[in-house]
Structures are given as structure tokens and as C-alpha cells.
């Protein structure tokens, strides 16, 4: 059994550093990273609000996350555990977001499809880093040196706000896409698929079908 390669990476990485990443590498991040989920994309892209930080010079790392955190009465922040949320839900916003902000590291849960990678990650020189577990919330929380700012929390609530965090050897993350547009999860799925027929042997389809099990909506599902 081989042990994955370990790499330190800046959240404003050089194109050479990104090009050197291989699927399955384990990455630890240094620098500023911002969180962005539904609320941030809708506010920035649909409502055309100004993004309240300089991107990508301050950070090229977009984290699909909302932390377990609080804003204290004196305005200071406490951050506990940090875990990503599933990224596939943000695919509709990411092409425009990447074009506008120059994000190079998309960090989240579960990755995107190889079509996404080829269509807008690779042309933007970006790769996907997956959190591990899921989720190593306490480990990642330990990697947060401090909270730099929380934007839009009044408009969006704590969970949807844009948290800007200073990462200090924050990780682990796993490289889940590369500059070929290859997808780690699809590679693993393909290996597992070889075994599926054997596992299902002897089982039988349900007597009552459901939509999705036939593509023709004029079919009866009984």
C-alpha cells in the first residue's frame, strides 16, 4: 500500500505549482481562503453586488463551506470546526465566478464532473481540492490561524456568509482534478464499477418501477 504524496500550497498558487499536482496528492494550504456557497454566488452574480475583497490577488482559493462559528457581541469571531459542503450544487455559478475572480483552487466536498473540469477549470488553470473524510472538521479548524473578515452575514446569515480565513498549514485536502481535466472520483468509480455486476447477482428489480428507471414518461411504472 502506497502513502499519498504530501504538498504545501499557497492559496495564491503559481501556475507551475498547480501544474505539478497529481490526482490523489495530499495538500496543505497557506494563505487567505474565502467561503462561498449559494448565498454568495446569488448575491455576487445575480444581484451584481461588489465582492468585498481583492480577487485573486488576496486569494485564489474558493471554499465550498460554512464553518461552525460564531460572531461575538464585541464583533470578534470564533471558529470551531470547518467542513466542506457538496460542490456539484454550485456548478451553475462557477464558470462565471471563476472568470470574474480568477479562482485557481476550488475546495469542497465530492468534486465536480470531468466535463466541468474540461469545460471551465482547465481553461482557467484551476484544479479541485477535496476535503477528506468527510469531514475532518476539527483538523481543518486547527488550520485556521484567524478569521480575517465575515462579509454579508447580515444579509445572508452565518451559514451562507462569506468567511475569509487565514490558513496555516490547513489540511488535509486531496487533489481531485488536474490540468488534463481528469477526475479522481470518476477514476475510482470506474474501478469499482467492474465489481458491480457480481455484487448485484441474485437480486431482482422491484416489481413496481419508479420514474428514472425508465426514460419514457409515457411508460406505466407498474
Amino acid at each position, binding site marked *: *500500500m*502506497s*502513502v*499519498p504524496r504530501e504538498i504545501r500550497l499557497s492559496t495564491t498558487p503559481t501556475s507551475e505549482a498547480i501544474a505539478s499536482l497529481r490526482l*490523489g496528492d*495530499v495538500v496543505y494550504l497557506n494563505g487567505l481562503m474565502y467561503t462561498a456557497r449559494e448565498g454568495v454566488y446569488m448575491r455576487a452574480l445575480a444581484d451584481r453586488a461588489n465582492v468585498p475583497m481583492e480577487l485573486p490577488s488576496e486569494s485564489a482559493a474558493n471554499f465550498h*463551506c*460554512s*464553518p*461552525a*462559528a*460564531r460572531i461575538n457581541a464585541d464583533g470578534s469571531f*470564533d471558529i*470551531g*470546526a*470547518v*467542513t*466542506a*459542503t*457538496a460542490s456539484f450544487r454550485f456548478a451553475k455559478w462557477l464558470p462565471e465566478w471563476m472568470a470574474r475572480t480568477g479562482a485557481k483552487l476550488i475546495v469542497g*466536498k*465530492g*468534486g465536480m464532473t470531468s466535463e466541468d473540469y474540461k469545460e471551465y477549470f482547465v481553461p482557467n488553470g484551476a484544479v479541485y481540492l*477535496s476535503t*477528506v*473524510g*468527510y*469531514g*475532518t*472538521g*476539527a*483538523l*481543518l*479548524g*486547527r488550520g485556521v490561524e484567524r478569521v480575517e473578515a465575515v462579509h454579508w452575514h447580515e444579509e445572508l*446569515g*452565518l*451559514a*451562507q456568509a462569506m468567511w475569509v480565513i487565514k490558513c496555516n498549514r490547513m489540511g*488535509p485536502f*486531496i487533489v481531485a482534478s488536474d490540468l488534463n481535466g481528469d477526475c479522481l*472520483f470518476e477514476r*475510482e*468509480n470506474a*474501478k*469499482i464499477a467492474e*465489481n*458491480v455486476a457480481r*455484487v*448485484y447477482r*441474485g*437480486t*431482482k*428489480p*422491484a*416489481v*413496481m418501477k*419508479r420514474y428514472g428507471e425508465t426514460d419514457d414518461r409515457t411508460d406505466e411504472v407498474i
Partner: protein
Amino acid sequence: MIPIQLIQETAEALMDKAAIEIPQDYLDGLRAAADSEDGDLSSFVLKAMLENYEVAKEDRRAMCGDTGVPRWFVKLGNETQVEGGMVALEAALRRATANSTSGVPLRPNRVHPLWRTDHNNNVGIGAPEIEYGFEPEPEGEWVDLITVHKGGLFGTDYRMLFPSDGIQGIKRFYLDSLMAFGKRGLACQPAIIGIGLGGSKDICMTLGKRASVLRVVGSRNSDPRIAELEDEFKELGNSIGMGAMGFVGKNMVIDCNIEVGFCHTGGMPMSVHAFCLSSRRAVARIHAGGQVVFRTDPAWFTDYQRRETIDWSPVREAAE
């Protein structure tokens, strides 16, 4: 009479424990999985999770940033009275949930389904859920508070099967659920898989959820034939070849628990639930005298909860 202040204090302590401390039974199960795992990436993931549990306890920070949707199961002895009545108990549990959300801190996950209103405290319409059970034994005044912070998005499914689908149909839907939610690790496996069989549709979901969150790793259904199925299904899930995060591996299911309820004669409804790598549950029994005993086994499924008869007579049941 159980003092209401003690209920709230205990509930806050439970919220903290559930978010931070992995239950020992799940930890033992995951250690065994890590020892047997030979997939490169799966193995790395399991080791990182084991390290994560230690860090959570050392730092007193939540195991996972998605701290789930807190809910409560309350079990009362037959003679128990609560100071202020059950309305006061519900207020205490809601207050404890809100206080601990900022105290631990937890992520304020609960929002209105349409307006997305977030009270930033995990309390709102129907949240946290509070469910009740009652027990004839042991006698005396006591209440069990059980909090579970289960994730809410992936890993759960329901299907109306029919008697002619049989065990092979049950197996297929079980595998379908693991395949659907296991890819890319959306179910946050290896998990405690709970299966509900029977009941009406809502109760089928309830049985499966309770099977995953209210039974510990290594427990077995009191019906020996169901217990055999639990063993078989655990092995079946682990034979898919899928491990943590959907990487190649041999550990998908830390344990499989099945609970049943009588259903309509024409049907065989089934639900599947996955209690994730951060299986957040914590339990305490509060006695009327003020004694509080913490534990991690909800011990929910007693013979009384699974009773089949009209009246409950433990002496007669034991004699049969």
C-alpha cells in the same frame, strides 16, 4: 419530580458531547475498519478521521463543520413527572439547542424551507424535533435525554416494496442506496446503516432513522433471523469494493441495523439511512434525586419498544 433547570443544564452538556466526542462503539468500529483497509486512498482517509476525533477532543471543537440538525429523543419512566410539565421540558430542550449552537459553536444549519430564514440558533418551526418514548422499567422517576445531530442531505431513501419482492428485492434497494450515495462519499461512509422495514411510510422512515442513530455498533436485533440479516447486509455492503469517500476500498458499512414494524398486508415498505463518520449522539439519564448519568448507548429498542401484544406483562412474556 425532575427539576427543569437540571434538564436544561444536562441538555447543554449533551449538545457539547455529541458534537465533539465520537461515541466509543463507533470509534472501535472505525478502528477495526482502518486496520482491515487496504485501499491506498481509503486507508489515508480513515487514518485522517481517527486523527480528527483526537483533535476534536483535545481542542474541544466539533468533529465536523457540518454539525448536522440537532434533534431530541426523550424517554420517560412510567411514573416520571417533570417540573413545569412537558411544555417546560420542550422549552428547556429548545433553549439548550439555541445556547449550544453559539456555545460550542455549532453551525446554524436550520432554515425555513422556502424563505431560507436562519435564526442562527438551530431553532425554528418543528426544529429541533422532539420525539418521545415510555418505559415500564425501571420503576421510579427518571428521564433519558438523547440528542442526535445527524446530517440531513444524503444517504437516505425510501421505497414501497411488495411481499413478492422478497429478500432479494430488499437487498437490491439496499445496494442501490449505497451505490447512489456512496459515490464520491456523499453518505460520509463508512457509516452505521439503518434499515426500516414495515410500518406506514412515515413510520418506515422513522424506524430506519432510529435503527441508524439509536442503536450502537455491535448491537443486534432481538429477533435472531433479523440479526442474521444484519450480519449478512453488513458483509454485503462491504463487498461492493467501495470505501471512504467512494474510493476503492472494503469498508462502507461499520454496522447494519434493521428495525421492523407491522405494515399493510399488501406492502413491504423499506427505508435506508446512513449515520456518518461523525456519528453524533449523546445520552444522559436524569433521576428525580438529581443524579445524572451520561452514556452513549441510547438503549432505545427495549423489549417494550418492540412489543407485539396488547397489554404489557413482562412476567408472562418471560415465561413464554
